[in-house]
């Protein structure tokens, strides 16, 4: 008992939080919930997982949302931003003050912040910019400068443009339809912003396609980039194994890693963007994969059987290849339909 209590002191908790407000913010909804424990433990980049549909719901999977902001009022409140994309988020949008939500959090690894006062560029796509403002506060508290580069399909889908303009050293907005800021996508402007702001570090949150391009450009300029990925999740706490993506570890080995507990924040270059949605052939535990050390260690032993096991393919499926190339359209909307 004492052991598990000790464990929860810094870890996530499950609360039934009272809804304070639900408001429209352009194309999105923002919901504020009283959740003192979660607010106190929160660090920018972390998320919450919310049960939807009320008691006896037919929707069993929690919806994961990046935390936009926490405030000390009412003992501690948590706010997140979402788009109505399905039954679960529609139900959330229909919540009213004094409704109660079952919420777990704060979940996942937060954005690491630099030790020194450096020039930080925060890049957001759509409502992916929501977690960047709490990060900006934290960075400024460390005397870092903060520049924003936000983009979306249209002006009403750029979340936090005003705040970015008000609080950022600079704020560049791009929209695909040209209704706000520069016509185009964030990566069209990334090079110029990096140049103007003399960026030392990039933080990015948004659709996977954007994160991939931001990472590629950051690499070109040799700037470290931290990305918060979006992957479909069922539980948010690390038990369901549905939100995995191929991540290269510091030992050079690719592993299928859970984005909920080992992420959602990764160094951009750790993510094998081309292989997201697949099991790379050289990933730890992929069919046929065998560590060199283990092979020599077990020479002649269970080795032969292991080889067979590796080639057996995924379970519950006869002769189904485990590989899949290219992403499927549905998988990008992640943060809870």
């Amino acid at each position, binding site marked *: 008992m004492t052991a598990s209590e000790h464990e929860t002191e810094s870890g996530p*908790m499950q609360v039934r939080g009272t809804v304070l407000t639900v408001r429209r913010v352009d194309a999105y909804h923002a919901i504020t919930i009283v959740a003192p424990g979660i607010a106190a433990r929160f660090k920018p980049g972390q998320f919450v997982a919310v049960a939807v549909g009320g008691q006896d719901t037919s929707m*069993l999977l929690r919806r994961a949302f990046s935390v936009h902001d926490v405030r000390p009022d009412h003992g501690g409140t948590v706010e997140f931003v979402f788009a109505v994309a399905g039954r679960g988020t529609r139900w959330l949008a229909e919540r009213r003050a004094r409704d109660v939500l079952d919420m777990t959090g704060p979940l996942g690894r937060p954005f690491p912040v630099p030790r020194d006062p450096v020039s930080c560029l925060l890049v957001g796509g759509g409502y992916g910019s929501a977690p960047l403002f709490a990060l900006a506060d934290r960075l400024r508290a460390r005397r870092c400068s903060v520049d924003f580069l936000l983009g979306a399909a249209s002006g009403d889908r750029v979340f936090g443009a005003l705040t970015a303009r008000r609080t950022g050293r600079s704020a560049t907005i791009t929209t695909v339809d040209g209704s706000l800021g520069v016509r185009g996508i964030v990566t069209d402007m990334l090079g110029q912003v990096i140049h103007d702001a003399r960026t030392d570090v990039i933080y990015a949150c948004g659709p996977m396609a954007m994160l991939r391009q931001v990472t590629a450009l950051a690499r070109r300029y040799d700037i470290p980039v931290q990305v918060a990925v979006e992957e479909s999740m069922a539980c948010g706490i690390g038990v369901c194994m549905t939100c995995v993506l191929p991540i290269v570890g510091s030992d050079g080995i690719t592993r299928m890693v859970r984005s909920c507990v080992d992420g959602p924040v990764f160094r951009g270059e750790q993510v094998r963007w081309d292989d997201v949605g697949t099991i790379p052939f050289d990933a730890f535990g992929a069919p046929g994969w065998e560590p060199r050390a283990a092979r020599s260690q077990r020479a002649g032993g269970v080795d032969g059987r292991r080889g067979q*096991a590796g080639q057996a393919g995924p379970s519950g499926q006869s002769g189904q290849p485990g590989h899949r190339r290219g992403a499927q359209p549905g998988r990008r909307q992640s943060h809870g339909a």
Partner: protein
Amino acid sequence: MAPDLRTRLGTVELPNPILTASGCAGSGRELAQFVDVSKVGAIVTKSVMLAPRAGRPTPRMAETASGMLNSIGLQGPGIDAFLQRDLPWLLSRGARAVVSIAGSTLDEYAELASRLSDAAGVTAIEVNISCPNVEHRGQVFACDPVDAGAVIEAVRARARYDIPVFAKLSPDVADIVAIARACVSAGADGLSLINTLHGMVIDTDTMRPVLAGLTGGLSGPAIRPVAVRCIWQVRQALPDVPIIGMGGVVTGRDALELMLAGASMVSVGTAIFHDPSASARILRELDDELARRGIERLSQVISLAHEMRVAGPSMGTVR
């Protein structure tokens, strides 16, 4: 007075009959942030294989009405890492560990049973036989009485005598009683009923299957009636074999339903994704359900639905 919920699993006495279902609680570590794992009847760990395994590509899950499909593909660290890291951790927390094993050949299952028998502290082995048998053209072990029996025989032969071996059966068979009989004849000490149902979802916008692996296992309340039916049929045919029931248990009432059908222990699976503290809540609710019906001991309700007349006036009337 609070009902007596103690139950036996082989040589170990469990404080209560609520377990976590394999694949829904990892190795307990993540859950420990939300529940005291030592107070759960037992933690049934995610199926472990001999070698590390990367699993299937994403998307790996799809929500369905009162359920979900998963196609994880048995991703896991392999037995070495499990024995080094996960099992000792569970034991250090005072949890009881039921270890689920999976393999592609009889030898793999046997090797796993042997490795677990050498380790201290394994309460029971649950054999996940819903895997393709590479020695039998990929035919799933659980779908063939001979194959299913062969796995259990191999495991029983190598598992230490005092570790009970439970066979986890698939409901996707024409005659689950035939599979159950084969497993018990082969030496299974008990049965776990049921594994997921094979299902598929197509996205009508993209017009493609949602899961990268195309098909997946259906779980959640949607399958509970199937679980009740399977437990009922097996209990009818094999009245003395202990059954761990699982399939869509979300409330204490659901757990009671599976027990009335014949389960003496109940695993909580998909409900954990919805509510990480589900096991503790369901235990509380089960306690209440029994108390409200004036039942003193858990053993009184196990298989009770099979009895022709309702025992005691209080039991039939309370809703």
